[in-house]
């Protein structure tokens, strides 16, 4: 089968998997987003309540939801805000689908290089999830903080969110997968070169002895 055709079949399979597995995926990853939110929400101003999958507001499917309490960092006893960050589960699964599909389709000459790439892919995946879905979930907290402080201008979180919404999410997932794909190849080639060097060392020693 031609590589292009195989690639298209993998992509179609990934999309079907995404449709079927969106909600289970969001449920499975909720503890990760929860831990991430708690890691970012350091200090008394941001208090994360829960991250869970709940029925959507408009009744058009489930949503990954973050519930939190936001206080004004300059006046912790003053007015506070109850915020809720929502992302449709179909959107939650976009990033991993793109990321892993690109990484799995990245050309590899050996099984070893593919495995190295997959191993390198896990931290990359956690990073890209934090930068995309994680940051989108936290956006309402940042916006509420800005409102409580009386800030009217857009915050860096808003700009980042605009970037993600305008296609940045795909670009980050594809780009990071591409970088890891390329680095995985490099790592495999470098270790193969080191192995060749080690295995050729005794031969070099023999030849130098013969010369003497």
């Amino acid at each position, binding site marked *: 089968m031609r590589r292009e055709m195989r690639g*298209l079949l993998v992509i179609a399979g990934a999309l079907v998997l995404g449709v079927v597995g969106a909600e289970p995926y969001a449920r499975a990853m909720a503890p990760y987003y929860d831990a991430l939110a708690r890691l970012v929400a350091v200090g008394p101003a941001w208090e994360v309540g829960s991250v869970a999958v709940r029925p959507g507001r408009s009744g*058009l499917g489930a949503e990954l939801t973050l519930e939190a309490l936001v206080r004004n960092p300059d006046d912790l006893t003053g007015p506070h805000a109850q915020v809720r960050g929502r992302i449709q589960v179909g959107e939650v699964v976009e990033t991993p689908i793109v990321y892993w599909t690109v990484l799995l389709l990245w050309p590899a000459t050996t099984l070893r290089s593919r495995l190295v790439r997959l191993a390198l892919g896990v931290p990359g995946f956690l990073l890209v999830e934090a930068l995309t879905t994680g940051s989108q979930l936290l956006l309402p907290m940042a916006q509420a903080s800005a409102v409580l402080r009386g800030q009217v201008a857009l915050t860096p979180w808003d700009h980042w969110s605009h970037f993600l919404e305008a*296609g*940045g999410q795909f670009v*980050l997932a594809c780009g990071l997968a591409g*970088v890891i794909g390329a680095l995985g*190849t490099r790592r495999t080639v470098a270790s193969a070169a080191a192995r060749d060097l080690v295995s050729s060392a005794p031969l070099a020693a023999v030849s130098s002895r013969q010369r003497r």
Partner: protein
Amino acid sequence: MPDQLRMLPSLGFALKFMALFGLLMGAFEAARGSAVERFVVEDLILKPTVAVIDRLAPAELVTLSDRTLISPGSRLHVTRGCEGIEMFLMLGAAILAFPATAKQRLQGLAVGAVIAYVLSLSRLIALHFILRYSPAAWEALHGLILPLGPIVLLAVYFRYWTLSLDRPATARPVHAA
């Protein structure tokens, strides 16, 4: 060795693609709210979308109010990321990041822009009909298939374009010295 040689351009392409997309997207975001942005989103994308729906199914009675497609049974509010601009930006970034001559890039962008435009309109038309007649499928189609499907098709076009760049070089006859 061939792997190592292949790795450097791939890494360079991935980094350039991300940086160029960031620049293009930043430039477009800076233009948000301007007459140019309104012209691109409203006059070039949303109005033709409504016109096509009206032509295909006049009984839908679709109208455009600000950036919302309104019909008697649905209201589709087109927000950032739904209007299809990202397809043009991604294609532009990919073509600019790939080594090619200016002429090849212009050709790639011209054809790609037409494909991206057709895909943008098709996606919005599909979203309208899904919201109106199959809201149960909204989550899967709006959240996953309709954002990714057009990008996959554009990626296939990009792949075709990169392969077409190689053809003249490989087809060139080898001359003896």
